[in-house]
């Protein structure tokens, strides 16, 4: 037995949420060949099938690409610091892939070790995550290699599993998830099958060992020299979280903001003196991979990667995490 909801009932539910003033985000066909997670204002915009993974990640609904952290104003020499908005409307991130949802508990750790980023936390608290289990995958997908899978519940408040007849089995995992779907599902004898994920492509533990032993290895130069140094991978990655802090304004007033940043940019780690600890692109690729598969696991116990494959899909030159890891495999069995 299972609880199910039809696609049309799901859209009705979404319409209710919008009517209640909740913000809804989800996958949307933005133009031919391009699906993105965006804010949705009409249930018809929601896409629940026909795509593998949107080109971006839903992290920006809790960790926006640009976030004002306060504004300042000078009157003569008097300074006024004005708080940025710190209450956020309830929001539902709908039909996100399980790999994207799994990134959120991973990011929770970073934004809360020692110092707590309340901007992140408040947005997170205001968010209900409803995942959509994957029925298919492409060559870039590798969730199963980082301990996840096409219906992994991590980070989900509720999950929709595509069943027959345009219906979804609804599996709530938290109170939030329960509340979101209470009274709108019907009990059915049907149960969604267990979707199968991509074949496992590497062993993350061995990757970690490899990284710790090959900091100076030739692989970086040999396999990542064609990296162009853009941030397409980092900015569409559900787990990449590096940011910059900038002031915008003038001597009279302005804002300070937190903006996404990427370790692939040369100026990311450039010292004021002109010295750059990571002055070449292979060094920057090494940083990215090491951060994901060695440093973060060491510090926080989680791999900073959920296998969504966006880095590969969005790479202008077909690099991405997966290809580097596969190159490592050629060096030794991973």
């Amino acid at each position, binding site marked *: 037995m299972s609880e199910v909801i039809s696609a049309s009932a799901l859209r009705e539910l979404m319409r209710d949420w919008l009517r209640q003033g909740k*913000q809804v*985000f989800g996958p949307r066909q*933005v133009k031919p060949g391009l699906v*993105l*997670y*965006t*804010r949705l*204002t*009409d249930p018809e915009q929601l896409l629940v099938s026909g795509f593998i993974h949107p080109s*971006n990640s839903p992290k*920006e*609904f809790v960790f*926006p*690409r*640009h*976030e*004002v952290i306060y*504004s300042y104003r000078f009157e003569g020499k008097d300074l006024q610091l004005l708080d940025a*908005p710190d209450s956020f409307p309830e929001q539902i991130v709908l039909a996100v892939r399980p790999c994207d949802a799994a990134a959120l508990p991973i990011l929770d750790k970073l934004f809360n070790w020692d110092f707590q980023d309340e901007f992140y936390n408040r947005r997170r608290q205001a968010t209900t995550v409803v995942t959509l289990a994957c029925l298919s995958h492409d060559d870039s997908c590798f969730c199963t290699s980082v301990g996840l899978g096409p219906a992994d519940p991590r980070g989900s408040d509720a999950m929709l599993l595509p069943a027959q007849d345009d219906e979804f089995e609804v599996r709530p995992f938290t109170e939030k998830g329960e509340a979101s779907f209470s009274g709108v599902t019907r009990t059915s004898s049907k149960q969604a099958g267990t979707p199968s994920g991509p074949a496992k492509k590497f062993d993350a533990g061995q990757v970690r060992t490899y990284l710790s032993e090959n900091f100076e290895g030739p692989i970086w130069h040999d396999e990542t020299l064609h990296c162009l140094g853009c941030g397409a991978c980092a900015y569409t990655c559900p787990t990449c979280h590096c940011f910059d802090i900038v002031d*915008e*304004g*003038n001597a009279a*007033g*302005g*804002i300070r*903001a937190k903006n996404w940043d990427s370790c692939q940019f040369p100026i990311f780690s450039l010292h004021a003196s002109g010295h750059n600890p990571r002055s070449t692109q292979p060094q920057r690729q090494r940083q990215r991979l090491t951060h994901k598969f060695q440093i973060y696991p060491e510090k926080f116990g989680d791999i900073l990667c959920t296998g969504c494959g966006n880095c590969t899909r969005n790479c202008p030159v077909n690099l991405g995490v997966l290809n580097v890891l596969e190159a490592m495999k050629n060096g030794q069995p991973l």
Partner: protein
Amino acid sequence: MSVPQTFEPKIVAFVCNWCTYLGADLAGTNRLEYPANVRIIRLPCTGRIDFNLIIKAFELNADAVLVSGCHPGDCHYTTGNYHARRRWMLFRELLSTLGFDLNRIHFTWISAAEGKKWQQVITEITEKTREMGPYPYLAIPDASVSTVDHGESTA
């Protein structure tokens, strides 16, 4: 768009040091009155007037921008205005494709002797801009088409 009666257009004029600035100066010394809506920014040469300055002016809520320098043949640096002219020809195409209102961006040649022309140009631009109303550069579009709502800087 209904325009409040009190609307006074803000006009930013990027002018070259050798001709137009002196022309404006001459208008002043001759006591030729022209609207106080113009903010003059003096640069060495029109060849130095980077397109980013024009964008910056709109970012800072200018309602119209004027770029003005020496007449062809009169450039203090011989060819600065010729280079500028070619750049503007192309830049106008880009702005047009982007959907900028080209009625908000003016180019003139005003010499050091043309105080009168300065007065006329500024008066005309001010009147024309007053009629058109404020320029809502980057007023937030229909929120439904935006991927996310991210707050605009208030600076």
